C-alpha cells in the first residue's frame, strides 16, 4: 500500500534531521548550535525550530566570530536570534589576537584560528553536544564523518577511532571533558539545501544572491575588500555582479560571478555548476590535499 504520506527526498532529509535534533535533546545536558548566519546554519536552526514546535528550541546558539564578517550576515544573524528569542554566545577570534593567545597568520586568513576559541567556548560553557552544519558532500574527509562524531578532551577528531554508526541508533555516550559534534545535515547535498530553502521559503542573508560589489582577483577567486585587507600591488579592484556560495571568514571566502538574483536562479546555477562550493570559494581548503582532514583532527568544525 502506498499512502499519501510517502516522503520524498527532501521530506526524508527533514525527518532525519528532526530525529537527530530530538535524540540530542533527549540524551545530552548542554547542547549548542553553531550559528554564523550562513545558509547551512540558518537551515540548521530552521530544522531545530520545526523539531520542537510549538516549544522554543531548547538550545542556545554559538558563533565563533573571526572578526572578518560580512555586515549583511551579522545583521541577519542578530535578526534571526531575536526573532526566535534565543540566546547567542559569541566567541571572538579578535579577543584572542588582542591578548596574544593567537597570532594573525601571514596570509591573513582567520578560519583556521577559529578552533581555539571554539574549544574554549565548549569547555567554559560545558557544552556536551555541538551541532554543526557540515555535510558529507562538501569534502572527502567530511565524507567519512559520522552524524554523531565523538571528540576527545582536546576536541580532536580521530578517524580511526570513530564508532560504527548503525541504523539510526546514535551512540552519544562520552566521558567527562569529551563532547560530541552532531551533523544533522550529513546526508544533504548543496542542491538539496537550496531546494529545501526554496520549498520552505527560508530567508537568507542578501549576499547569497547576485549583487554589485567591488572585488579583486587573487588565486582565481574574487575577494572583497574589508577590515581584513584589500588588494595588494598589482591586484585591481573592479565592480562585478557576484554572489557568495559559502560564507566564511571574509579574507578567504570568494564570491562567484553570477546573475542569480533569486532562489530559482540560484538552484539553476548550482545544478549547472562544474565546481564544488568549497573549491569555488574557499581558499582555506586549497592549502593541501588533506587540508580539511588536518583541521578536523585539530578540532575544527
Amino acid at each position: 500500500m502506498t499512502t499519501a504520506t510517502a516522503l520524498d527526498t527532501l521530506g526524508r532529509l527533514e525527518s532525519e534531521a528532526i530525529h537527530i535534533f530530538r535524540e540530542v535533546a533527549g540524551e545530552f545536558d548542554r547542547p549548542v548550535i553553531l550559528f554564523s548566519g550562513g545558509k547551512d546554519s540558518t537551515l540548521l536552526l530552521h530544522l531545530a525550530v520545526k523539531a520542537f514546535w510549538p516549544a522554543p528550541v531548547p538550545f542556545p546558539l554559538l558563533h565563533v566570530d573571526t572578526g572578518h564578517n560580512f555586515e549583511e550576515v551579522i545583521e541577519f544573524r542578530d535578526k534571526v536570534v531575536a526573532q526566535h528569542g534565543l540566546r547567542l554566545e559569541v566567541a571572538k577570534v579578535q579577543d584572542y589576537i588582542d591578548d596574544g593567545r593567537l597570532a594573525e597568520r601571514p596570509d591573513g586568513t582567520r578560519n583556521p584560528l577559529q578552533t581555539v576559541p571554539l574549544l574554549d567556548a565548549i569547555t567554559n560553557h560545558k557544552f556536551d553536544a555541538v551541532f554543526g552544519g557540515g555535510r558529507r558532500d562538501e569534502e572527502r574527509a567530511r565524507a567519512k564523518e559520522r552524524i554523531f562524531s565523538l571528540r576527545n578532551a582536546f576536541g580532536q577528531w580521530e578517524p580511526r577511532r570513530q564508532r560504527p554508526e548503525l541504523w539510526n541508533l546514535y551512540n552519544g555516550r562520552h566521558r567527562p571533558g569529551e563532547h560530541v559534534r552532531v551533523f544533522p545535515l550529513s546526508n544533504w547535498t548543496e542542491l538539496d539545501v537550496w531546494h529545501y530553502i526554496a520549498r520552505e521559503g527560508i530567508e537568507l542573508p542578501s549576499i547569497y544572491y547576485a549583487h554589485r560589489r567591488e572585488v579583486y582577483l587573487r588565486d582565481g577567486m574574487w575577494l572583497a575588500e574589508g577590515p581584513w585587507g584589500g588588494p595588494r600591488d598589482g591586484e585591481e579592484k573592479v565592480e562585478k555582479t557576484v554572489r557568495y556560495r559559502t560564507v566564511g571568514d571574509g579574507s578567504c571566502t570568494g564570491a562567484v560571478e553570477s546573475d542569480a538574483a533569486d532562489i530559482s536562479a540560484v538552484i539553476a546555477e548550482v545544478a549547472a555548476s562544474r565546481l564544488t562550493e568549497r573549491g569555488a570559494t574557499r581558499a582555506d581548503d586549497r592549502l593541501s590535499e588533506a587540508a580539511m582532514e588536518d583541521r578536523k583532527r585539530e578540532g575544527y568544525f
Partner: protein
Amino acid sequence: MSDLLRLATAGSVDDGKSTLVGRLLYDTKSVLADTLDAVHRASADRGLTTPDLSLLVDGLRSEREQGITIDVAYRYFATPKRSFVLADTPGHVQYTRNTVTGASTAQLGVLLVDARKGVIEQTRRHAAVLALLGVPRLVLAVNKIDLVDFDEVTFSRIAKEFTAHATALGYAEDAVVEIPVSALAGDNVVERSTRTPWYDGPTLLEHLESVPVDADAHDAPFRFPVQYVIRPRTPEHPDYRGYAGQVAAGTVRVGDEIAVLPAGLRSAVTGIDTADGPLQEAAAGQSVTLLLAHDLDISRGDLIATAAQPPTVTDEFEATVCWLSEKALTPGARVLVKHGTRTVQAIVTELRTRFDEQKLASTEAPDSLSLNEIGQVAVRTAEPIPVDDYTKDRRTGAFLVIDAADGSTLAAGLVGAPLPEVDGVDSCTEGGDAALPDTHALVSPGP
C-alpha cells in the same frame, strides 16, 4: 517509485571497489571540475598516466598513502531518475564492522568480485552479512571482465554460483542481479559496453535507477519510540503535552488505539502534530508529535505501539550480535543495550553459537566472540523492553551493545536468530522464526 535509493558496496581488497564507485561518480558527472583537477594532479604526483578514480573516494591521508579504503564513506549522486546515497564499505581490515555499518541502512547491496577469481570466501561472507542485516536486494558486479577477454562463459559460471549462494541465504532469484563490468575502462557501469555483446541485461546504473525500492514498512504494525516530550508551557500553549518521535514502522491515524510500553498503558491518538500543521495520519519515516487522550506518565524511552499488535515485552531474549570491538565478548558480560530510544543495563548470559567467518561454519557454545565475529547469544535486561523480531521489523528489532565503562559501541544486535544457513552448514540451531520464548513474556497488553 521512490526517488531515493540507499545502497552499500562491499568487496575484498583489490577488487577495484573504489575505482567502481569513482567510475559511477565520474560517468554520472557527479564529480565537479575542481575535484577532478585535484585527482589529476594527485595521480600525476604518483606517476600515473591516467587518473586514478579511486582517489575520488579515498578521503583520508592514510588511505591515499596506502592505496586502501579504511572507513565507510558516504557518497551522494543523482541522475534525472533518482538520488542515491552510497555507503562505500571497505573490504579488508574490520570488514564486518564496516559492512555491517553500511548494510544497516541499505536497500540494496553491491558486491564486487574479480572476474579472474570469481566468487571467493569473502564474497560469501559479505553476502551473508548483507542477508543477516536484511538488505533486500543484491547486485554482483563481476569486475575486470576485460582481463578475462570479456568471456561469456566465465561470467555465466560466476553468476550461476553467486545466485545459488544468494538463494541459499534466502534471496529470491529476482532480488539478485549479476552484471559484467570493467570499472577501470567503464564497461557496463554507466555506458553500455560494445565488448560484451552477449550481455543483454542492464548496466549497473540502469539497474540502480530502475530496481524497485522496498517501501518503508507502512503496512507493518505501528511502532513509535518516544524521543522527547514537548511541553512549551507558553501563554499560547499552557497545557500542551506532545510525544515527539519518528514513526519506526507502520502507520498511525487520529483515533487509533495505542499501547504505551513497557508499562502496558492504553490510550488513543487525538492528534498528530507537525510544525507545518496537523496530520490525519503518519507513516514509517515521518517525524511527528503525537497527542494522546489521557494524561499518562510517558517519557523518552517508552514505545507507543498499536494496541492491536503490540511487540513482545520481555527482559530475556535471544539475539544475533555482530561483534565490532577489539574487546572480546565472554559469557556473563555486563553491557548496555540501546534499543529504540531506551538504554538499559544488560547481561549477555550465554553464547550459543559462533558463526565462523573464515570457515562459514558455526561452533556451539563458544568461549568468546571476537572482533568481526557473529554469533547467537542470550540477553537478560535489567528492565523489560518491547522487542520485535529483526526479520519482521528492521527498526524495532535492532539494538546497540554499548560498553558501560567507556561508552564505545561493542556490537550490532538483532533480536531473534536471523542468521541464515550458509552452504548447508548448520549455522543456526534455532528455527527460522527464532521466536521469543513465550515463557519470558511479561506483559502482553493485547485486547
